[in-house]
């Protein structure tokens, strides 16, 4: 290990059942350096952080720290803290009911009696040195999110941590709070602390980071100095497409759109509690359009607003030209809209219920409380779609939670297809699924579109979007920044719009 490298990971591997999350990652962090860690969904970024902080234990590979020889074993957050690795998670893992000073010192000292005066004085000293606008005795819940994050960082600093990991710290901060955070990060850099900055906001990376490491499906794609890596190239590395050899794959089956068709769904100035900027969106019959953009750019929030999953606070939705009132999912379903949620585990499957019940659920709710399907009806609904989508399940009665990820996703798709929607929203339908199922789903989308169903297809893998969508809406920081149709539907056009302008 060269003298100023504070942390080095060698050939880290980690698997969850069949899925290989980390396939031998190498990573180097020097002292006094802000090092960005970037990667799209499923690149293994969060798994790597969890291995480093002791939430998961690595299967293979070694972690080397300055001042320790050989591999340091990290099995719990406690050991990581002792080794000098501290983490500030996006959802702040502090206790809102305790005071600021307590949050900085709880769980650390070994002494039985707690000396409040000494603790508060030390806390105030650190808060002043890091210029954090709060006092030791205020309750954490009374401080803003930004201040709470700085308190977490102050706790890490006070444990003289050598490596500080910031996991998406800026996603819920406004601009001056981000500026304050960067000033604090620069102070720590000057003190020689190595900072790993996990984010997906490109301009923040270029503003504060010295080096960037890009991860893609479980492997370190490369480590670059920020100045040497233009924004466009960074996006292409993240999306795994080389700029120069990109042939314009024109999807031949893309159905040409006749423009005079009436809009199936049309929204103007639609906003919801999830804080997206007002959305103007339209989709025609049989059209497949897509939302693209980096993780956290507001793609899901837009479709959740349309479906009424988040409370709509402004704007209107028109269906086939008529104004429609949608503020709960049931209204959207009655208006013929279907929504396949992004997170299968939390919002999709109902774990203990059988495959059959999961499939018929949406249609059953539409039918109403008083008209349950007979066992026979339910069975042939289920059998029909199990065959149609090729769902591999022992029987229609097995609980859905015992199916593989791909088959679970097919069941949810079957659930919404059963309601014969006019407008189907698929949010990351292919995430964490074997390649075979991915291709099936894309073929299915095109088949349904040809039968007249209008579909919104959201995926972080842009080549999938290119193959299926005839129109792409590009999002950045919760705003629609561009729309690509026809000939513009090329990989590098997308990336340049995502990267924002020609930089």
């Amino acid at each position, binding site marked *: 290990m060269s003298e100023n490298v504070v942390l080095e990971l060698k050939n880290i591997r980690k698997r969850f059942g069949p899925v290989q999350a980390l396939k031998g990652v190498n990573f180097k962090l020097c002292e006094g350096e802000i090092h960005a860690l970037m990667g799209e969904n499923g690149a293994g970024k969060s798994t790597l952080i969890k291995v480093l902080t002791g939430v998961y234990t690595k299967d293979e590979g070694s972690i080397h720290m300055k001042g320790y020889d050989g591999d340091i074993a990290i099995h719990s957050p406690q050991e990581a803290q002792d080794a000098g690795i501290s983490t500030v998670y996006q959802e702040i893992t502090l206790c809102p009911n305790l005071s600021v000073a307590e949050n900085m010192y709880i769980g650390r000292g070994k002494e039985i009696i707690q000396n409040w005066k000494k603790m508060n004085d030390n806390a105030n000293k650190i808060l002043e040195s890091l210029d954090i606008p709060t006092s030791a005795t205020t309750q954490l819940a009374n401080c803003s999110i930004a201040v709470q994050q700085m308190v977490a960082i102050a706790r890490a600093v006070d444990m003289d941590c050598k490596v500080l990991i910031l996991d998406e710290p800026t996603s819920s901060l406004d601009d001056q709070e981000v500026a304050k955070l960067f000033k604090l990060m620069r102070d720590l850099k000057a003190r020689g602390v190595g900072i790993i900055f996990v984010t997906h906001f490109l301009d923040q990376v270029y503003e504060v980071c010295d080096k960037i490491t890009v991860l893609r499906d479980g492997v370190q794609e490369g480590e670059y100095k920020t100045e040497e890596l233009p924004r466009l190239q960074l996006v292409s590395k993240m999306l795994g497409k080389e700029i120069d050899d990109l042939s314009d794959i024109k999807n031949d089956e893309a159905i040409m759109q006749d423009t005079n068709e009436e809009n199936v769904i049309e929204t103007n100035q639609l906003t919801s509690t999830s804080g997206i900027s007002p959305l103007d969106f339209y989709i025609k019959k049989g059209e497949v359009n897509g939302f693209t953009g980096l993780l956290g750019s507001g793609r899901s929030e837009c479709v959740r607003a349309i*479906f009424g*999953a988040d409370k709509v606070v402004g704007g209107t939705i028109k269906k086939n030209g008529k104004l429609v009132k949608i503020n*709960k*999912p*049931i209204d959207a*379903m009655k208006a013929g809209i279907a*929504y396949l*949620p992004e997170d299968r585990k*939390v*919002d*999709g*499957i*109902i*774990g*203990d*219920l059988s495959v059959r*019940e999961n499939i018929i*659920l*949406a249609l*059953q*709710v*539409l039918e109403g*409380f*008083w008209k*349950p399907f007979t066992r026979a009806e339910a069975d042939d609904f289920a059998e029909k779609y199990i065959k149609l989508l090729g769902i591999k399940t022992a029987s229609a009665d097995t609980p859905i939670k015992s199916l593989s990820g791909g088959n679970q996703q097919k069941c949810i798709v079957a*659930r919404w297809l059963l309601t014969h929607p006019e407008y189907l929203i698929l949010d990351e339908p292919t995430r964490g699924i074997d390649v075979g199922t991915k291709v099936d789903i894309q073929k299915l989308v095109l088949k349904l579109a040809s039968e007249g169903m209008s579909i919104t297809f959201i995926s972080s893998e842009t080549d999938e979007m290119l193959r299926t969508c005839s129109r792409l809406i590009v999002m950045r920081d919760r705003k629609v920044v561009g729309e690509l149709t026809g000939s513009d539907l090329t990989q590098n056009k997308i990336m340049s719009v995502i990267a924002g302008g020609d930089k």
Partner: protein
Amino acid sequence: MKKNSFISKIAGNRILIPIVALLILAVFNFIADPSFFKITLGYNNLGNPVLSGYLITILDYGSELAILALGMTLVTAASGGQDISVGAAIAIAGSAMLRVLCGADGRAETLQTPIIVAFLIAVVIAMAFGAFNGILVAYFKIQPMIATLILFTAGRSIAAWINNNQLPIVNDQGFTVFGGFIPGIPIPTPFFIAAACVVVIMLVLKFTNLGLYTQAVGINESSSRLNGLNPEFIKFITFVILGICVAVAALIKVSRLSTINYSVIAKDIEMDAILAVALGGNSLSGGKFNMWASVLGAYVIQFLTTTLYKFNVQSDALPAYKAIVVIILVIISAPTVREWMGNMWTRMNEKKDAKEAKVNG
């Protein structure tokens, strides 16, 4: 994959637990005293045929519990908690019924109102208090047990207040029919009422989506919201349905004695109701449920109570034995224990396979 098949067989059909418990009790009693199962046809003082024997008392006195188990299963499935105010709510419903039947001074010779009207009023009142619990749990997001704690504390006092602490007595012979026997029919009426309630609930489960919606909300609330359901309303409704069950149970309880004692009526019945749901193999933290298993669980508990009575265990000492049964049940179904049992089983298998390998290796 031997481990999974064995464990899933146990966990799979949860109805196994009440059946096993029933067999154990039956065998135990058979050994102890075969006359336990003797049923005799005698004549009560009014001269009409009456069946008597331990089995009959089980079916007779188990009916209130079975009816409550129906409602409690739905509440547990949807809200992942239990309602501990059912005993107090029975006191309120019973007290209201007697107040309507006996009028203000509580001594009426003839009934002031027809029984059916009194029963309906009691149903409305029980549903109102069920709704009160439902609002606290569904809309105020207070834990079910803490929310129903309020009614548990105040319930019996409200019941006493309704009749200004008088102990009204109904002298009309017709009223005792619900708790006793219909002249000419040897089987106790409570058994019929319980059977009727079970049939009604089964029909409701068959011809409406109550079962599917309750389980969906209980297992994954956010996903059921995205599928168009209104989780708050469903949780609220389960508490109201439990209110109806409470009213029916109150009718039986009050007509058994044709009077009411506020501090003693349906004492500790909430413990039995929770035990019935647990004994039915349903998870006490909500989700999937099997209604038949809960009803069977209720009768198994009455079987246990009658057996303990037979060995002249004090009625106040019963809760101790039942507490032990609940603890054992809850330990067996605790996730950490299941995992531990799972690894124990696999380690045993590996040792067995290793031995086999050594033998024929």
